[in-house]
């Protein structure tokens, strides 16, 4: 495993996600900033009351996607950057933690941007699927982002594509 990144899938039936572990991993005495994102299960979805969710996941490819996102951030924001990614698999209750991403770097700007970019990659590129369980007893797989356009390209992001991705944050709510 590369020493600047730690990526993992956590079976929620075995253990909860641990933000403290993320902070510990990305901490370094060369760093002046750490950005931490924690995603949790919320009560409402599209105006409906949610009781819980479950995540289905293609583990092997998801871990590779996390690792690639961390590697892209490392290449983009400098060799001092450290990145941690953990995502839950299985059945989660309201308030349970679904995802933890942390980035540590010498300065806050790189930490914020790296954390955001890695999180967006996790959300939009990793093979993970959410099914919501509603108060009325119904369930639904969430609509998501199609991976079709990604092909086998696996090309390093160019400045232009990275800029386009950054712009898309604002008009991409899910």
């Amino acid at each position, binding site marked *: 495993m590369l020493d600047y990144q730690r990526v993992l899938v956590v079976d929620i039936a075995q253990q909860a996600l641990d933000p403290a572990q993320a902070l510990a991993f990305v901490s370094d005495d060369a760093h002046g900033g750490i950005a931490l994102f924690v995603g949790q299960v919320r009560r409402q979805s599209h105006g409906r009351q949610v009781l819980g969710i479950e995540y289905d996941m*293609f583990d092997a490819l998801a871990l590779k996607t996390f690792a690639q996102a961390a590697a892209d951030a490392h290449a983009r924001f400098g060799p001092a950057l450290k990145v941690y990614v953990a995502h839950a698999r299985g059945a989660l209750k309201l308030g349970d933690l679904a995802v933890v991403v942390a980035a540590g770097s010498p300065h806050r700007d790189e930490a914020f941007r790296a954390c955001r970019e890695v999180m967006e990659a996790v959300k939009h590129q990793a093979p993970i699927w959410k099914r919501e369980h509603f108060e009325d007893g119904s369930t639904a797989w969430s609509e998501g982002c*199609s991976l079709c356009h*990604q*092909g086998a390209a696996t090309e390093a992001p160019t400045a232009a594509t990275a800029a386009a991705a950054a712009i898309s944050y604002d008009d991409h709510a899910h």
Partner: protein
Amino acid sequence: MQVSVQLFGAFRQYQSEAQLQLDVPCNATVRDVRQAIANHAAAHWPGFSVGLLQASALATEDAILDAAASVSDGARLAVLPPVSGG
């Protein structure tokens, strides 16, 4: 020849088994596997939405595959509906 296709997310609602075994032509491509999934769905999955397959990617454990990529006998693939992690 035969390939296996692992099902995820919304595809799981159409059958209890998480994996399909599909016959595809020799020298098949990913495009042929996609067609074989469509054929299987039409025959066995009442109410299946073709749009779901059209919006889905095919992949191995290592990468998402181009439509023109060749597939070997016994290949283990996965069909990935639009993703919704995080």
